[in-house]
């Protein structure tokens, strides 16, 4: 296995406030690293360094062995799919135009784009005949998020970034999309970084977990190891899983 993404001593600060401090980690080919952390822990900032929406104040981020600062940002970004919570779908583009955007930018033939869009809609569980010509405002939140994922996959990028993509969905829809994510993860073998503050989601979707706290990684472990992690922040996150009806519920007395 080789590192597809590598953070080497990355610092990032805005007007002297440090957001990332000496951040080190690697993401291996084909794995899904989940960055877990509270709001303000720096996980989204770290994610945006991979596709060069941000550049490190110090240190470097390597993608396929080359520092992001040395990449042509346009070439770099077209090799990296990006999915965010608010989807960022273009409201004036149809579903098909949204999904076909990067292929079009890459100069694919119209026929090939169309076939790719239909294939992605099909696998996202959205019948192309029904959804191709719709606008994002005509979709439910879950459908929008599926289109967002399809758009990120369109040009078959080797790296995928997810920034709390399911955070705004109701729990039932979220679970549906999480299960679908697992299917994608295990069939496509993409290298992915997935940011979330939901420990349950992190344990479910990650092949490894990086727990971020105050701008650096406190614990880096597989989901199984993470359950036994000793770090203070890890314990705090795991404690939030512990609540159950048996010990705290207000059910009828036995």
């Amino acid at each position, binding site marked *: 296995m080789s590192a597809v993404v590598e953070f080497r001593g990355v610092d990032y600060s805005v007007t002297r406030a440090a957001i990332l401090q000496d951040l080190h980690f690697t993401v291996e080919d084909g794995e899904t690293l989940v960055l877990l952390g509270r709001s303000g822990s720096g996980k989204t900032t770290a994610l945006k360094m991979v596709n060069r*929406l941000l550049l490190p104040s110090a240190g470097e981020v390597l993608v396929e062995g080359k520092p992001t600062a040395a990449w042509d940002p346009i*070439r770099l970004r077209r090799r990296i799919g*990006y999915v965010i919570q608010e989807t*960022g779908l273009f409201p004036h583009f149809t579903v098909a135009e949204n999904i076909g955007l*990067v292929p079009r930018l890459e100069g694919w033939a119209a026929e090939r784009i169309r076939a790719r869009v239909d294939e992605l809609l099909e696998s996202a569980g959205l019948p192309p005949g029904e959804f191709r010509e719709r606008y994002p405002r005509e979709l439910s939140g879950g459908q929008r998020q599926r289109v967002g994922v399809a758009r990120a996959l369109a040009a078959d990028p080797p790296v995928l970034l997810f920034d709390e993509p399911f955070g705004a969905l109701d729990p039932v829809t979220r679970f549906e999309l999480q299960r679908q994510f697992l299917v994608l993860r295990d069939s496509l073998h993409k290298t992915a970084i997935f940011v979330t503050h939901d420990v349950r989601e992190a344990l479910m979707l990650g092949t490894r977990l990086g727990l971020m706290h105050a701008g650096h990684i406190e614990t880096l472990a597989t989901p199984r190891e993470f359950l036994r992690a000793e770090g203070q922040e890890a314990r705090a996150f795991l404690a939030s899983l512990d609540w159950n009806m048996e010990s705290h519920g207000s059910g009828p007395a036995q």
Partner: protein
Amino acid sequence: MDPGLRSEIASLTVEHLELVLVAMLIAAAVSIPAGILLTRRAGLQRWVLSFANVLQTIPSLALFGFLIPVPLIGGIGKRTAIVALVLYALLPILRNTLVGILGVDAAVRESAVAMGMTGRQVLWEVELPLAMRTILAGVRVATVATIGTATIAAAIGGGGLGVFIFRGISTVDTAQILAGAIPAAAIALAADEGLGWLERKLSPV
């Protein structure tokens, strides 16, 4: 109606439309690109908007007067009138271009950049289409105001429907004033309707 008056109304209306059209084309050609540029230069925004604001506060009759002694753009006649009208029309278009583009959803802009669109592609395919409605609303407001202000052009020899109004005032002749005011109001209403329709038509969302 006296055929002489009728043909004068027609010719002054055409002259009026010319003034407005030329002024609006210049104002749009200057302030839409300037507005786009300002979205990339946050530091300049306040200065440019303040300057355009100050221009708007100068009483229109005074602005026309101030321009007469200015070399090159000044003097008596249409050219000076058009310069004054352009100066008035700048602010609404500039401001709406700025507000329209800055108002594009940050998530949409970010994903456009993150998908590897170039700056030019983000502007033409995302920002301008989504800001179009707001920009056109600025053009509409500026046009309607310019149609009214253009009646003052007559005061400095710029012609247009203001000729009737100033003549009517100096001879205390209400009919003359109305001969200028009614067509001007009609043009303004038609422009408001027409540009409003265009706004809805071109609005992508």
